[in-house]
């Protein structure tokens, strides 16, 4: 067993060691039980008072969604204007310019929806003020939005029949004060002591050993990097994200960042089981997700460790694996692990450049984002998985000829329709988006945009198609990583992905919450011998099969045109 693989195993085990107790803790926090962080209560009541909220007010699912959408709209408008006029605002030591309207539109949506697509580059595109007051702020609140939405769903299944689903603001505030802020603080300090900058000084200049003058971008990055990972946001302080030596200085920080992005998604699944008093179901969901993750992880690691066949032909030794776009201090193995983790949960930060990974790795990355619920993003991972659950309940109900039920509530036409629509939405957005982009690329190559469509692609052939497919998929999954060779800072991509981001975020939140709200309000039917149990191995297998079949049917043709075609041509 070599040290690089040991690194992967250690990282995953440490993740579980932290995530499982965290899940138990979260279940208690949101149930209002006593926990050791209750000393933070005065801060929370201060926030409620300032904003005139009564945290005791119970909401139904519609009121929850209204609160969620309203506050998101406020952030959207606020951030849009601040980003556009950032050059005229203070805290801009590097003198960076304001954003164009379309870039600002894209950036703000992308941060509000927890995606962090980043068509700008961190060193030159934003100021310290916007990094903090717009981007980092949104990294906290967009993640808290996702968690709060998931807790609404939890609430719907906790009691037998209930329309009272708690208070959105309470869940939202608690996600920040009890979870995100304390964890970020710890992590930021670890990063700072390993070499991530924290001070507000601007660019530095030095003369190198060979006499070149070099400018170094810096800034208070550590705080930003912490929440970027914990909140499954993924937007980097620097353009090169976590490949940058100041953003991810060594193997320790690499492990910390890897662990940080997975703990909340796993913890939410565990918390779900405990919160609704069906631990077994929680573990079953966790099991399916974990198996799914390993099925994507193992081929990814093996494809990267194998190295590039074209470079092998030149007679070069690839003892450790493919190195293009990777950093020596991490090596290919943990970089492959990162690329799986960052695509199955919706982080989208990178510690190696995905555009340069092997073709099959690209296919696994895309598939991870298409499924988007093997752990999934903060809160929304559980929501996405819930949709698959409902479909699985419906299909198995049909197979055995019973009225489908989920946790003692009848699943009827209305709920299944919503679930089906949400399932269809992703393939529609991804495939239609890619199709339009390909059409523009081939037929309107000379359009007078900031980047002309004919020069969008950094790579020819099948790989170029993958670049476009990846961009749209990443937007729909609210992931935010990219095949960054794509020239994406122009009107077309900014606006198109802006819309995909928006729909790909809010509909998959509203859908599950609506289903949960409707189900929760129905009469509870006690379990009998005829009930289809959802916490059994058989049903878990069924859910897994549903996930595989749905995604294979939706995406196989697109994957075949992109990464798979590239793979087979390289074999020659």
């Amino acid at each position, binding site marked *: 067993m070599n040290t*690089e693989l*040991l*690194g992967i195993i250690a990282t995953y085990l440490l993740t579980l060691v932290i995530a499982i107790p965290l899940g138990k803790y979260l279940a208690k926090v949101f149930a209002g039980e006593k926990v050791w962080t209750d000393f933070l209560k005065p801060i929370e009541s201060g926030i409620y008072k300032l904003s005139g909220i009564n945290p005791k007010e119970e909401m139904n699912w519609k009121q929850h969604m209204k609160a969620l959408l309203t506050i998101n709209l406020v952030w959207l408008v606020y951030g849009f204007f601040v980003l556009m006029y950032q050059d005229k605002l203070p805290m801009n030591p590097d003198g960076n310019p304001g954003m164009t309207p379309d870039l600002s539109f894209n950036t703000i949506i992308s941060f509000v929806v927890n995606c962090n697509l980043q068509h700008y*580059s961190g060193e*030159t595109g934003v100021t310290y003020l916007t990094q*903090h007051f717009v981007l*980092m*702020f949104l990294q906290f609140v967009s993640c808290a939005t996702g968690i709060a939405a998931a807790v609404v769903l939890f609430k719907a299944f906790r009691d037998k029949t209930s329309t009272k689903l708690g208070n959105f603001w309470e869940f939202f505030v608690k996600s920040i004060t009890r979870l995100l802020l304390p964890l970020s*603080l710890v992590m930021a*300090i670890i990063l*700072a002591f390993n070499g991530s*900058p*924290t*001070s507000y000084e601007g660019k530095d200049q*030095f*003369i*190198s*050993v060979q006499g*070149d003058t*070099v400018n*170094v*971008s810096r800034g208070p990055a*550590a*705080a930003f990097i912490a929440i970027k990972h914990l909140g499954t946001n993924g937007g980097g302080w*620097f*353009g*090169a994200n976590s*490949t*940058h*030596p*100041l953003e991810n200085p060594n*193997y320790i920080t690499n492990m910390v960042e890897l662990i940080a992005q997975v703990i909340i998604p796993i913890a939410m699944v565990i918390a779900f089981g405990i919160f609704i008093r069906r631990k077994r179901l929680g573990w079953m969901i966790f099991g399916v997700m974990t198996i799914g993750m390993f099925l994507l992880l193992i081929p990814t690691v093996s494809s990267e460790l194998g190295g590039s066949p*074209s470079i092998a032909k030149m*007679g*070069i*030794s*690839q*003892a*450790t*694996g*493919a*190195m*293009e*776009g990777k*950093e*020596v*201090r*991490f090596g290919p193995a943990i970089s492959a692990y990162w690329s799986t983790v960052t695509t199955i949960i919706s982080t989208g930060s*990178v*510690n190696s*450049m995905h*555009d*340069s990974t092997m073709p099959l790795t690209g296919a696994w990355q895309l598939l991870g984002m298409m499924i988007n619920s093997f752990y999934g993003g903060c809160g929304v991972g559980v929501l996405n998985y819930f949709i698959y659950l409902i479909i699985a309940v419906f299909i198995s109900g049909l197979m055995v000829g019973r009225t489908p039920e989920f946790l003692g509530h009848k699943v009827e036409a209305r709920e299944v329709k919503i679930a089906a629509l949400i399932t269809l939405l992703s393939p529609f957005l991804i495939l239609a988006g890619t199709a339009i982009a390909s059409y523009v690329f081939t037929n309107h190559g000379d359009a007078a945009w900031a980047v002309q469509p004919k020069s969008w692609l*950094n*790579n*020819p052939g099948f790989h170029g198609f993958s670049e476009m497919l990846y961009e749209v998929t990443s937007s729909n999954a609210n992931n935010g990583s990219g*095949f*960054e*060779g794509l020239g994406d800072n122009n009107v077309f991509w900014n606006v198109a992905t802006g819309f995909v981001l928006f729909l790909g975020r809010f509909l998959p939140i509203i859908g599950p919450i609506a289903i949960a709200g409707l189900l929760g309000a129905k009469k509870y039917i006690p379990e009998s011998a005829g009930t289809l149990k959802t916490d059994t191995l058989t049903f878990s297998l069924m859910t897994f099969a549903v996930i595989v079949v749905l995604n294979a049917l939706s995406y196989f043709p697109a994957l075949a045109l992109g990464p798979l075609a590239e793979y087979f041509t*390289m074999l020659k």
Partner: protein
Amino acid sequence: MVLLCVIYPLIVAFAGGFSKGKGGGEKITRNGKVVGYAAIGQSFTKPEYFWGRPSAVGYNAAGSAGSNKGPSNPDYLKEVSNRIDTLLKYNPSIKRADIPADMVTASGSGLDPNISEQGAIIQIKRVAAYRKIDEKTVAELVVKNTQGPLLGLFGPSSVNVLKLNLALDELKR
């Protein structure tokens, strides 16, 4: 908002003030002058220095990026092939199979401060010849500047090019 955007980063900035680089990144100085950041790679092209990895941004640390070249891109493969030829020309004693992949491929950030141990080993002969010093001394320096896996267990080993080159310059005096 005040809590998240002002208090939180200020606490972090305060704590960061106690770290090695005082929150500004760890700097390396020689004769009182800053010659680089430990974490940020810089360009070494002269034959008497160990070279770093190819960089998509020419080691300009005001930006950062990888090449984003796909594995099947013919232009890219040609570029790699040229890099191999350059290495072979300057290090005539080595064979193709000795060259590790990291020496002919660009890093993700374009600022990778490290090369693999093998990447340093293939350059020992050249550096020693240009500096007219014993190969053994140089080889010892490489070993001294190789950082092993974390706790000896996790991850790859690497060589910090800047530190190694500074140690080389130190020898002369």
